[in-house]
Structures are given as structure tokens and as C-alpha cells.
């Protein structure tokens, strides 16, 4: 019997990353722009998707939504369907994040030929989704004012992989002790120059700027 050391050096999430790349290729082949939307529970992910659908619907864009939840509920996907767009609900069975396999399965259930945009609403969680690539073109985080201004300092990983940051519920700024400079300083350390859009899904403030950014990606 011999004892040997074998060098491997393989990323632990290699299999997931590989499949994520497949998903991205598939979406690109269909000329679809795609978004992985991450946030804490209740930060306004579904509200933001609905506001985006409302803004895009006038221009006849078709948007598919993948809804991730840890329980077998269809509350969020029902809202998307009610707004006239196809949605697939994924029940992660308690898992704290979506992964590339779940997204691949969901893509099989969407009419990809008809779509311009796919938005994935990840499970409400600031830790785990950061590690799992889904294969979307853009990683977007919604931070909402009531969560507090210290979140970049407490959950640094999720900020580091972002392409866009949405700061939601700015209509609540007058009522909440939220130091925007302190918040932005934390973001700047983690992700210098990160594009951000302060919005309120309730009043519609700021949604136009976001909409212009998105439209440029769609055309």
C-alpha cells in the first residue's frame, strides 16, 4: 500500500459555477438580459420587480420572473402573473439560497423565445446567495432604508460581487435614523464606483433612472 498526496486546487463551488456559465450562455443565445435580485426578506424585491414590469410593459417588453422561496408558497409568483407576466416558483425546501441547478430547471419552464428580460428573485438572505452564481448577467442587491445603514459593514461579501445597488424605501428616510454617508462609505470600500439607484417602490421616486439604465441593457 502506498500513500500519495494529490494536488487538486479546484474551487469548491466549481460544479455550480460551471452550470451557471451554461445558464448564461443559454440566456444570451435567446437575447435575454437577466438579473439576480438579492436582498433581505421584506426589502421590497417583489415590489421592485412589479414596478419594473409596470415601467417596461408600455414598450411591449416581455419579462419572465423566477421566484425563489424556502417554502412552497406562490404569493410572489401570483403577483407577477397578475401583472401579466410568466413566473416560475422555486421552492428551495429550506435551502437558504438559489443555485444554478434550480435556475436551470426554472428556465426550462419559461417561454425563453418570447422573453427580453429574466429577473430571478433570490431567497431573502444577505449571506448565502453571494456565494452561488446563477448565471445571470447582472447581480443586483436591494438595500432598504429600514434595515439600517450598517449592513455593508456586517454583510461585506454580498456587496463585493454586485453590478448594481438599489437603495429602496427612500420615502422612509425622514422617519428613520439612516446615515446615507456612512452607508455609502461602507459600499465604497467593498465595491468602488458601484452604480446605485435610490428609489421608492411606493412613491415611484427614482424608478425612472433605474428604468433608463435597464432599457439601455435591453436594447
Amino acid at each position, binding site marked *: 500500500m502506498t500513500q500519495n498526496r494529490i*494536488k487538486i486546487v479546484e*474551487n469548491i463551488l466549481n460544479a455550480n459555477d460551471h452550470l451557471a456559465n451554461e445558464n448564461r450562455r443559454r440566456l444570451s443565445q435567446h437575447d435575454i438580459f437577466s438579473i439576480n435580485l438579492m436582498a433581505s426578506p421584506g426589502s421590497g424585491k417583489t415590489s421592485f420587480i412589479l414596478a419594473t414590469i409596470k415601467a417596461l410593459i408600455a414598450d411591449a417588453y416581455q419579462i419572465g420572473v423566477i421566484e425563489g422561496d424556502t417554502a412552497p408558497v406562490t404569493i410572489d409568483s401570483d403577483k407577477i402573473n397578475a401583472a401579466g407576466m410568466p413566473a416560475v416558483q422555486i421552492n428551495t425546501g429550506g435551502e437558504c439560497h438559489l443555485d444554478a441547478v434550480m435556475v436551470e430547471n426554472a428556465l426550462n419552464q419559461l417561454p425563453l423565445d418570447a422573453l427580453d428580460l429574466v429577473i430571478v428573485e433570490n431567497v431573502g438572505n444577505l449571506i448565502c446567495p453571494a456565494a452561488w452564481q446563477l448565471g445571470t448577467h447582472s447581480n443586483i442587491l436591494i438595500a432598504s432604508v429600514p434595515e439600517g445603514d450598517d449592513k455593508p459593514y456586517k454583510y461585506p461579501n454580498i456587496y463585493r460581487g454586485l453590478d448594481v445597488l438599489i437603495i429602496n424605501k427612500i420615502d422612509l428616510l425622514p422617519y428613520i435614523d439612516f446615515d446615507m454617508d456612512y452607508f455609502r462609505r461602507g459600499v465604497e470600500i467593498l465595491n468602488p464606483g458601484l452604480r446605485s439607484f435610490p428609489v421608492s417602490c411606493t412613491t415611484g421616486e427614482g424608478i425612472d433612472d433605474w428604468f433608463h439604465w435597464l432599457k439601455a441593457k435591453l436594447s
Partner: protein
Amino acid sequence: MHELAVTESVLDIACKHAQKAQATKVTDIYLVIGRLSSIVDDSIEFYWNIISKDTICEEAQLHFNRVPAKLVCQECAHEYILEGDLTACQNCQSVNIRVLSGDEFHLESIEIQR
């Protein structure tokens, strides 16, 4: 966080490479994990003992090499190790910081018998 899914990936990678090397047994697994990844060693060990049963990796010892999170200030070139909370440059207070290490997350090697 998601230690079970991570542990399953470690097992998959280790088994795949052990089979390729025609091993009869895997005795040690060396992991390199940066401080910035929120992974708890103890829960990986816990899941490991359960899921590695009846595989070629059963009873293999896990070794964690924890790489410190090292930052460098882009303004004054000061380098420092992140111990606790995220901070601006400890020398000049700039927020123009780059991460040098701490993101590592890979299976480095395995020790096998054959």
C-alpha cells in the same frame, strides 16, 4: 450559511479525483478557505461525518487552511489584516481599498492510499 451544500461539493470533488487516481481510500483532505467566506468549520465537520459514510472518503480527516483577509489602501499603500469589522484605511482613513486575499475557497489536495 449553506454548509451542507458546500460539504457535498467537497465530497464530490474529492471522490472524483480519488477515483481518477485509483485510490482505495482517502485519508486527508486539505481545504483553503479565506476569512471573507462565511463558512463555519465545525458544521462542515459535522456534515462531513454523516455524508462521507460508505464512500471512499469515509473517515478522511479535514484540514482547514484559513487565509487571512488582507487589504491594501489605494491612496497610501498601507496593507492591513482585517480582524473584526470592516474599516476604512487604518493609516489615512481612505475608503479606496482593495482586497488582496481572503476570498479563497478551494480544495487544495487530498492524501490517498492505493
